[in-house]
């Protein structure tokens, strides 16, 4: 019997047995499933019996076993990172904003310097350490010496101080990641590694000149800002603070492995032997870090601190060529000179090291340029080998403009950089050929990402022609989509080839000969698309080839066949299909059923024509693995891509020896592009993108470029006259994460901005001027302005859990009004009272005076989000008659009690209309958000605004009712080219 059917039977028997009294269950079961009727499944009865027994245990036991496990794990997760100081707490003139982590020094917090209004990193010394007076003295002396260092690559120390028993250091707060995280997150190019190394060496040179030794150079002590600037942390400090642990560690290596290995691994031989150390110690540690950046491995490894130390003392580092076939000899020489065991043989000063590193970089750059111009000439010779392109004239034009740019490179370096991507398009084929002759297996490439459209409204799918010269994409204006053709190398060469129509394009593909565009259009669902074929340059009508296909198609390399998917929802089947390029002779290659799924919508035919890459996976839990399907036999071979938690798009590399995929390792990570070699399945990251989403990928088979659609989200506050929202004015710029705008009586706006641990309230004059931040401690939001414009009442998390606070309109005199778990305030029109919601699991509405005092409960049933009416006689709120059903809007007297009236909930963000006769809210219709009003007398809702396209998130009417402020969220998406990921 099939697994699924068997399980269904087990479950049915289980429930049927449960319906009977416990004493009769076994007997009933024996009768219901006599062993002989299931000859192959004698276990059925015992299976059900064991489940029934387990059920009884569940019922009888006071402890819910799995719940207990989950709770323990949660507790453990939280206690693994206990914080000494709480958000909002003060240390000297620093106010803690959030806990950042635990460093070599002890705990590190993000804090605000309340005197200077800037963010700082606050490092607390471990208490054990601060009790040793001699250590404290040494620590302070070193820290003070380090604080005198003034170098761009050394973190600035603002203050070294003591408050009570707590010794702490306030330093510059660096937004970025440690080199350790950086190494884990991306494969850096040799050039990037050199740039980082140069900055570290430069910092060391400056410090050594000033007579300061770092003592603990390791990836955890090197920060990298998003702009690439490197900062070295904790000069002369970290080691002092850690010494105590280390001594303990070396004495008892077998009991505490792991913890200290990281530090021991970066010691110099003289340090490991306990000898006195000098500046050359840092040079050795630098060498280890440099080696690790280049190869991804430490030169001296060990399971325990002792093993590491023993390796440092006696082993020679494995030659880098074993891991990197193409490491430049110069770099290998530098590494080896930093890692000499005898310090007399090492670089004697960081300055010498720095000079050699800079020289190595210059050589590398020269080599790169030379290589590129050589490749260019090969391209000119090989263009004849390219497959036919739409017009020969255009191709020649692209080649010659590329040639022109190369000659310019010699004189204009900046131009060279900005044009590099365009160049790649012209010369990509050449590079690929060139590298075939001289294979380079190292991951060091400089990846370039260039945006080549600027409409911000590009639809989800794109395709590049095989030679990488033509791009097809769509533009979605909110209602209709049009199809555009662009010559990749030529700016402003966009031609509309299909006029706007209310359709959704789900796939584009050029035929390999470049003459036809194949596209699919969604018919109600992505799993039901129709495939059309049209000449790329027009001159003929579109021909319908197939219907009922899932997403897009992919061509066989000879252009004679296509592959596509079919989703059979009724039978829960997914199929991978193959057909002739004209849609005839369809045949089924693979069919998967039930929880197993084949992601056939993005099948990609291999360059050798023998297989098709697809994903296969299960729906619950969600798993996705890349697999190849043999075209001859339909056999599925899974690739080891399970290291990725999410898995999106893929393309074969032109030589069939790997893939480019879009994936992320953990949900918290962003998507990145990866190279996966095939069949060896090694993965290597090629981009390290921060904030964008990619929705499509097309790789030019004959070039080193891929096109993708990149989208990002921003939100901003806008204002418009009520009744004419067609020409709104933008108030906040370029930012995102803003919301909840509220008018002041004099026509200014307060709003909140931020995410996570820093959300703050701002004030801005929409008639001009820059925003002023009113709060600066932890999370503050939901600002409401008092009718006289004197106060802002808001929700603040500064005391830990949310409570209602009040401050003056300029941010001064904050005063806590409630101590309950309370949020979402609304001020009465006479300015005397504040109503708000209380609770997490049960939600009730309370009120308190504007100056605080004893709170009073107003509702005794599930209710939240109260909003005072303009006359102050009642308030509107969300109201649940039945806690498991959706809520309604209720009108409740200002004195509390039961609703006098309820309405069904229409939309969101409801506010009173200024006249008090209707409630306004925003709701979405046909993909567009607009503001509506619902008259209290029960009339039909009326549309107040006429927005098109962008989403509204929150809104507020001005006091005179003439203007409206709203938050608008925009998605922008454009085509970007990624190049240089492969040589």
């Amino acid at each position, binding site marked *: 019997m099939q697994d699924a059917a068997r*399980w269904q039977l087990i*479950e049915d028997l289980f*429930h049927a047995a449960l319906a009977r009294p416990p004493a009769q269950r076994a007997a009933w079961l024996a009768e219901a499933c006599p062993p002989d009727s299931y000859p192959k499944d004698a276990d059925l009865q015992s299976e059900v019996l*064991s*489940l029934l027994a*387990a059920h009884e245990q*569940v019922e009888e036991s006071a402890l819910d076993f*799995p*719940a207990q*496990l*989950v709770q*323990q*794990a*949660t*507790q453990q997760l*939280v*206690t*693994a*990172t*206990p914080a000494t100081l*709480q*958000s909002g707490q003060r240390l000297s003139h620093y106010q803690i904003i*959030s806990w950042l982590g635990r460093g070599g020094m002890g705990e590190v917090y993000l804090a605000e310097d309340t005197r200077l209004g800037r963010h700082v990193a606050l490092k607390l010394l471990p208490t054990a350490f601060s009790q040793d007076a001699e250590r404290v003295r040494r620590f302070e002396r070193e820290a003070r010496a380090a604080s005198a260092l003034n170098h761009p690559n050394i973190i600035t120390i603002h203050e070294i101080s003591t408050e009570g028993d707590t010794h702490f250091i306030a330093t510059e707060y660096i937004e970025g990641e440690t080199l350790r995280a950086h190494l884990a997150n991306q494969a850096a190019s040799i050039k990037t590694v050199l740039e980082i190394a140069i900055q570290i060496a430069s910092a060391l040179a400056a410090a050594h000149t000033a007579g300061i030794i770092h003592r603990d150079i390791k990836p955890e002590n090197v920060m990298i800002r998003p702009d690439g600037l490197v900062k070295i942390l904790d000069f002369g400090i970290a080691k002092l603070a850690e010494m105590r642990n280390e001594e303990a560690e070396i004495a008892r290596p077998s009991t505490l492995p*792991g913890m200290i290995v990281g530090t021991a691994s970066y010691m110099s031989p003289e340090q490991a032997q306990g000898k006195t150390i000098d500046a050359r110690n840092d040079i050795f540690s630098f060498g280890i870090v440099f080696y690790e950046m280049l190869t991804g491995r430490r030169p001296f490894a060990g399971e*325990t601190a002792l093993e590491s130390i023993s390796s440092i003392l006696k082993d020679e580092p494995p030659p880098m060529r074993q891991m990197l076939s193409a490491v430049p000899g110069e770099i290998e020489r530098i590494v080896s000179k930093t890692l000499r065991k005898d310090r007399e043989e090492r670089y004697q000063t960081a300055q010498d090291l720095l000079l050699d590193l800079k020289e190595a970089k210059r050589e590398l750059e020269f080599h790169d340029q030379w290589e590129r111009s050589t490749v260019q000439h090969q391209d000119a010779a090989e263009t004849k080998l390219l497959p036919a392109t739409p017009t020969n004239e255009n191709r020649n034009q692209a080649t010659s403009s590329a040639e022109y740019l190369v000659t310019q490179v010699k004189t204009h370096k900046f131009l060279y950089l900005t044009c590099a991507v365009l160049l790649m398009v012209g010369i990509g084929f050449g590079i690929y050929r060139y590298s075939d002759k001289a294979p380079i297996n190292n991951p060091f490439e400089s990846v370039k990402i260039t945006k080549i459209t600027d409409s911000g409204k590009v639809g989800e799918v794109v395709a590049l022609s095989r030679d990488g010269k033509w791009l097809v994409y769509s533009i979605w204006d909110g209602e209709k989509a049009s199809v555009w053709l662009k010559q990749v190398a030529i700016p402003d060469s966009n031609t509309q080839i299909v006029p706007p129509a209310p359709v959704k394009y789900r796939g584009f593909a050029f035929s390999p000969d470049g003459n036809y565009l194949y596209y699919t259009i969604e018919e109600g669902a992505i799993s039901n698309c129709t495939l059309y074929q049209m000449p790329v340059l027009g001159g003929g009508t579109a021909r319908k080839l197939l219907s009922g296909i899932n997403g897009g198609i992919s061509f066989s390399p000879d252009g004679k066949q296509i592959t596509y998917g079919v989703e059979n929802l009724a039978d829960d089947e997914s199929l991978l299909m193959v057909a002739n390029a004209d849609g005839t002779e369809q045949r089924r290659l693979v069919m998967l059923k039930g*929880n197993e799924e084949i992601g056939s919508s993005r099948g990609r035919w291999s360059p050798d024509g023998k297989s098709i890459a697809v994903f296969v996976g*299960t*729906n*619950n*839990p969600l798993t996705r693995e890349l697999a190849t399907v043999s075209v001859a036999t339909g056999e599925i071979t899974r690739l080891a891509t399970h290291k990725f938690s999410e898995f999106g798009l893929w393309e074969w590399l032109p030589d069939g020896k790997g893939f480019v995929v879009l994936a992320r390792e*953990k*949900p*918290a*990570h*962003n*998507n990145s592009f990866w190279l996966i070699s095939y069949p060896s399945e090694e993965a290597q990251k090629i981009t390290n993108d921060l904030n964008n*989403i990619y*929705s499509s990928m097309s790789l030019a088979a004959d070039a080193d470029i891929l096109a993708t659609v990149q989208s990002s*989200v921003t939100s901003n506050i806008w204002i418009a006259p009520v009744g004419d929202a067609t020409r709104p004015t933008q108030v906040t710029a370029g930012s995102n*994460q803003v*919301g909840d705008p509220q008018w002041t009586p004099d026509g200014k706006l307060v709003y*909140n901005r*931020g*995410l*996570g*641990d820093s959300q703050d309230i701002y004030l801005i004059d929409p008639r001009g001027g820059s925003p002023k931040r009113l709060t600066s401690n932890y*999370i503050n*939001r939901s600002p409401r302005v008092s009718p006289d414009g004197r106060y802002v009442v808001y929700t603040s998390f500064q005391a*830990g859990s*949310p409570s209602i606070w009040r401050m003056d309109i300029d941010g001064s005199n904050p005063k806590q009004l409630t101590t309950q778990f309370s949020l979402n305030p609304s001020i009465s029109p006479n300015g005397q009272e504040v109503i708000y919601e209380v609770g*997490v699991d049960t939600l009730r509405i309370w009120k308190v005076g504007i100056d605080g005092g004893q709170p009073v409960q107003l509702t005794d049933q599930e209710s939240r989000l109260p909003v005072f009416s303009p006359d102050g006689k009642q308030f509107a709120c969300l109201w649940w008659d039945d806690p*498991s059903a959706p809520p309604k809007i209720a009108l409740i007297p200002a004195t509390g009690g039961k609703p006098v009236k309820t309405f069904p*909930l229409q939309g*969101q*963000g*409801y506010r009173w209309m200024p006249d008090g006769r209707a409630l306004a809210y925003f709701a979405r219709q046909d993909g567009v958000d607009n503001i509506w009003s619902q008259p209290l007398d029960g009339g039909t809702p009326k549309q107040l605004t006429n927005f098109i396209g962008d*989403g509204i*998130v*929150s809104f507020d009417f001005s006091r005179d009712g003439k203007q409206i402020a709203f938050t608008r*969220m925009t998605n922008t998406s454009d085509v970007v080219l990624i190049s240089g990921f492969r040589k």
Partner: protein
Amino acid sequence: MAEVTQLLLRWSEGDQVALEHLMPLVYDELRRLAGGFLRHDRLHQTLQPTALVHEAYLRMLGQADVAWQSRTQFFGLAATLMRRILVDHARERCAEKRGGGQFHLSLSHADLFARSPEIGLLTLDEALQTLAAIKPQHCRIVELRYFGGLTIAETAEVLGVSHATVERDWQFARAWLRRELSQ
């Protein structure tokens, strides 16, 4: 924050790009909360993942009257992410303890759970994966109930099935898990 509201709405309308944006935001928030959660007032409380999920909801969405469906949807998403966070964390801890080596889950005896929450959780996760292969919806129900703290009614709302179905499946799933974990 406004962003989160809108992303949630878009997601509820079937916009998968919105979910892409939303997931890392919620994951990060939950992780960050776990890092700084231990405040004075909660120090000695028993901490359920529900508390983190609720806190994340309040911090990310509490100000906006997000539609009811979106609210349960958020909890549904947070439940999944909470499970991943706990599993990721347990893996990290095991890796740390073993000096970076692979950890094999050969231990599934009940009394081990008390000693090592990491192994207990990884065993539970493994059992849930097995359950998912047999009965995907059962696994989802367990996830929503245990990791998201959803009630039967909320679970039914997220899954779009009836109250009775959830109760019935929940009953079976718990018995199955109990048997699996005490083997």
